[in-house]
């Protein structure tokens, strides 16, 4: 494990993902600092909601992080794939795979360590995202009550979460995102077993994510019932559930509550099941693979 992490940290490619996140976050922060008011006006217009709040205070660190996560968590799978899809195929490409496999470590161990390393990379990526998108935004924009713009069916709505009820939701959301992105890491690892260079598995991972995401967004009942529940992409954005606050009978929000915790829990279970299944398949395939590279 130590060896695997050492290799990851020594590769220049590793830092591309961190640099990309930093750049995107800075651009968002700069844009909102310069002209956040216009964005807020636009959102209020589309929300068509009668909601009284100070639009300047609304653009705070919590709100910024939510906006950034909404954008970034769709692109981050590509960054995760950059590293995870290189796990086995990169070794095959360099010619080091045959050295690894001829050492007294089992192939199961190799896959588990590669998977663990990809997971740790994913965690670090999300921690970095938290540092830049959340904590840096708090430094730049300050804190305050958080507004969440939401579309539910055909209805657009705005929810307000008090500032003392926000941080735990972010911790939970980042933890959920880690699980979701670990599915991507596992998928990339599996695909990397079949290739002798990392470009193929990276592209294949991205294609699978795109195709499954499109299918997950098709609103046709037969797909809703028979396909979507089995696609991991249907659960990738489940982290948003932590920002959907529960309400009482009068429609007032309840501090510390979640609108639908069972749905979040089920989504997590399904994602974990995907991880176990994909890593299991990876081990089975790799154990039988002839190393010809």
């Amino acid at each position, binding site marked *: 494990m*130590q*060896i695997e992490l*050492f*290799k990851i940290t*020594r*590769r*220049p490619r590793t830092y591309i993902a961190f640099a990309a996140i930093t750049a995107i976050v800075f651009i968002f922060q700069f844009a909102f600092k310069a002209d956040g008011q216009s964005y807020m006006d636009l959102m209020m217009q589309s929300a068509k909601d009668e909601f009284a709040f100070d639009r300047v205070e609304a653009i705070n660190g919590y709100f910024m992080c939510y906006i950034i996560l909404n954008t970034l968590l769709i692109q981050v799978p590509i960054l995760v794939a950059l590293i995870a899809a290189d796990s086995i195929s990169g070794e095959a490409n*360099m*010619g*080091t795979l*045959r*050295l*690894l*496999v*001829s*050492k*007294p*470590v*089992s192939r199961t161990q190799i896959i588990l360590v590669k998977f663990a390393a990809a997971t740790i990379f994913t965690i670090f990526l999300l921690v970095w995202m938290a540092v830049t998108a959340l904590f840096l935004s708090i430094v730049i924009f300050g804190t305050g009550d958080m507004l969440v713009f939401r579309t539910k069916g055909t209805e657009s709505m705005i929810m307000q979460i008090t500032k003392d009820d926000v941080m735990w939701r972010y911790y939970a959301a980042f933890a959920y995102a880690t699980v979701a992105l670990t599915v991507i890491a596992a998928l990339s690892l599996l695909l990397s077993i079949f290739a002798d260079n990392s470009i193929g598995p990276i592209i294949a991972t991205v294609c699978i994510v795109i195709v499954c995401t499109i299918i997950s967004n098709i609103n046709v009942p037969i797909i809703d019932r028979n396909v979507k529940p089995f696609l991991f992409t249907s659960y990738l954005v489940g982290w948003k559930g932590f920002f959907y606050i529960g309400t009482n009978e009068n429609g007032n929000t309840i501090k510390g509550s979640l609108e639908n915790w069972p749905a979040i829990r089920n989504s997590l279970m399904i994602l974990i099941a995907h991880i176990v299944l994909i890593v299991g398949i990876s081990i089975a395939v790799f154990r*039988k693979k*002839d*190393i*010809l590279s």
Partner: protein
Amino acid sequence: MSAIVSVDNLVKQFGNFTAVDGLSFTVNEGDVYGFLGQNGAGKSTTIRMMLTLIKPTAGSIKIFGKEILHHRSDILRQTGAMIERPDLYKYLSAYNNLSIFAKMSGIKVSKKLLMDQLEMVGLQEAADKKAGVFSQGMKQRLGIAVALVHNPKLIILDEPTNGLDPQGIADMRNLILRLSNEMGKTVIISSHLLSEVEQIANRMIIIDRGKKIVEGSVEELLDPEHTVVDIDTTNNEATQQLLASSKWNDYLQAEKPLQLMMNKTQVPALINDLVAGNVQLLSVKASHSLENYFLSLTTRHEHVEAFAN
């Protein structure tokens, strides 16, 4: 002398293609064992099966008396290998490459151990340089260091002189001889450069299309009986007629009119007879090197089969 490696009736098929076809051989403790064959003969596939990179279709491989598929870790802990090109992590230094593979071999790593190893292959000055900037020769030496760092009993080197310049080849040969003579290692060296193998191996096998052609001690296979004599004269046709009508007719090779296969001790008599027959000789080349032998085996299958029988 105990057998370190016993390969029995090994078969590997890739779809309809049989890469290794019922191969059997034995490597004894302390041997420098030459594993010879032309490109595509099945050498690398066999070595990869010995290192569990490829699963055999049939047959068994026992190393240190244990079946490789059932005692993989035990065996690989005592085995060092360099398989074809010594590709390493280009973005890591020689020292870090060595450190990684030493740890993976399950040994306790110290700076002294690693530096000693690098010194043995002449890379101590380049310890901190990235492997990506190494010349082929330096990579080859680092590959050897990786193969030896955990002090294995068995060393398998697949085409170790590939891409090396003459000095590099000589260095590699000396290193292998040192491993065998001074450190008592058992070495399997695969190559298609027979001139290299004959200088360092004590036993050898020649394989062709996945099958064993011949196996034995280099001394046996360099039997003077198999001396090849090539003759060149000012009039080759007349010389051929002279030889065909003499006692030397039995030694003439069918495909090459002026090549004879005989015992080395008979060569002076042949020359005397040619001179007595007024043949104007341009050259007489007698050789029984492994190179010549190997070429004769791989170019003339009827001879191959006759020899194998």
